[in-house]
């Protein structure tokens, strides 16, 4: 589905990524884990076109995408959320999602200018789709609130809703469980399984808490110092010596 090969990225003198290889299989829910600063978010930023890599390739369903602008990559079927929630803060919940429908508006600018029938129809269709999506996230009652006024949890959910508006094939989630307690994490996990089924998604999520990632994901990819040091099922990872050494540190247990 998504294939990353030899990805390298430097910032100044610092090697943020050096030769990262990873592969997502269609329909899986995989986790990208590793300590802070190991390069997980940088992988997302390179894959979604925010940074241009110094070397390496990224392809979705065989189509290379390195060097393309973020919106083109999004249209190839990759959507994402951000670690430090980036909503359109002064727009309503409704408009946050509708903005993401924009690339596929069924009317042209002239049609919008003259408010033709096609425009009215198109707007109605977008609104209906948006409301359906919001309903799925239980956000429909908040549709007219400004995004910045939402509670933290709703903001995270709205960001996922906005990412889904583009009907992506691959969904990249950057620490979706940040700040959640275990029962909330459980609910999130069920929710992710549900949207994966409904939208036929392949999901890659970042999580730096080892135990949590093991609870959610079917397969784990572990990064440290800008490289992938291991991948496999949670039980394989749990027993991987390199992971235990590099990630878990000396003598601490995998709870942090």
């Amino acid at each position, binding site marked *: 589905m998504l294939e990353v090969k030899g990805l390298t990225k430097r910032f100044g003198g610092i090697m943020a990524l050096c030769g990262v290889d990873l592969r997502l299989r269609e329909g899986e829910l995989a986790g990208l884990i590793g300590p802070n600063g190991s390069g997980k978010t940088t992988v997302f*930023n390179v894959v979604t076109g*925010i940074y241009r890599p110094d070397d390496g390739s990224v392809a979705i369903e065989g189509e290379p995408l390195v060097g393309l602008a973020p919106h083109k990559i999004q249209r190839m079927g990759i959507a994402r959320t951000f670690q*430090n929630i980036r909503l359109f803060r002064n727009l309503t919940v409704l408009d946050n999602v509708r903005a993401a429908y924009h690339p596929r508006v069924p009317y042209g600018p002239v049609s919008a200018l003259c408010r033709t029938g096609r425009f009215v129809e198109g707007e109605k269709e977008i609104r209906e789709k948006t409301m359906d999506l919001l309903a799925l996230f239980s956000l429909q009652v908040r549709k007219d609130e400004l995004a910045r006024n939402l509670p933290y949890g709703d903001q995270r959910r709205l960001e996922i809703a906005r990412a889904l508006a583009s009907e992506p094939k691959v969904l990249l989630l950057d620490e979706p469980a940040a700040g959640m307690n275990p029962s909330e994490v459980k609910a999130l996990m069920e929710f992710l399984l549900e949207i994966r089924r409904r939208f036929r998604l392949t999901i890659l999520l970042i999580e730096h808490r080892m135990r949590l990632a093991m609870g959610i994901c079917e397969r784990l990819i572990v990064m440290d110092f800008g490289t992938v040091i291991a991948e496999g099922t949670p039980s394989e990872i749990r027993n991987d010596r390199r992971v235990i050494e590099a990630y878990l540190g000396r003598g601490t247990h995998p709870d942090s």
Partner: protein
Amino acid sequence: MQQVVNGLQIGFVYALIALGYTMVYGIVRLINFAHGDVFMVGAFIGLYAIERCRLPLFAVFLLAVAGAALLAVVIDKIAYRPLRNAPRIASLITAIGVSLFLEYFTALRQVFGPNYYSFPRPFAVSSREVCGVELTNLQAIIFLTTLCCLALLYYVVHRTRMGRAMRAVSHDQVTAGLMGVNVNLVISFTFGLGAALAGVGGVLYGIAYPQVNTFMGVMPGLKAFTAAVLGGIGSIPGAVLGALIMGQSETLTAAYLSSTYRDGIAFVILIAVLLLRPTGILGVPRTEKV
């Protein structure tokens, strides 16, 4: 070569103004449009101090520095401080308001008056040849005064407790407050320090180009500000470098092209530099954290 020396003359004056822009921007991210007018007030204080009070040159500078600094601190308190937590554009608009107010208020007959006034020369201008270039005593004074100001500024910013606090506040106001720094006081101090340099610049400008009026701050202000951006806004050495480039480009254009294009060339350079280095020559490139 002669043109280069002439360019240095105006370049140094621009540097004195540009420093105020860059420091204020560095600390509160405000383009302080009123700064050029503080420079103008400095020049007028100089004018009165020389003409009416017949003070010695040193005292003239002191008076201009004090007046300009006081004015800037008052402006900050009235027009900018209440808007610290408002959208940035709001204080930009009040800065424009303050600028217009200062220009037109001082142009009233009851204040400085609307005309051009000739600035008295406190000494006779003479020149001598140094290394094949004509150097006037006026230019020597400008160079020396500016260099002294720069040295003093470097000392304040890098060697004093207040300077450390200024740098801390410019990086993170909230945390600086947690260290016990009175953030408002530090910001006022920065406004005052920048204005003091502009006050010196105003007097020097008056002596060098001996005609003043209340709108004289507009163009030098814009150019000094451009210089600050050219060098990398927020950077003190950048402001000086930008100002010197600005001065050179202006005198060279006037000498070899046409003085009517003088005001334009500097901005062509500015745009060209920004396109190549979006944060100016010495500005630190910012990578936004995503």
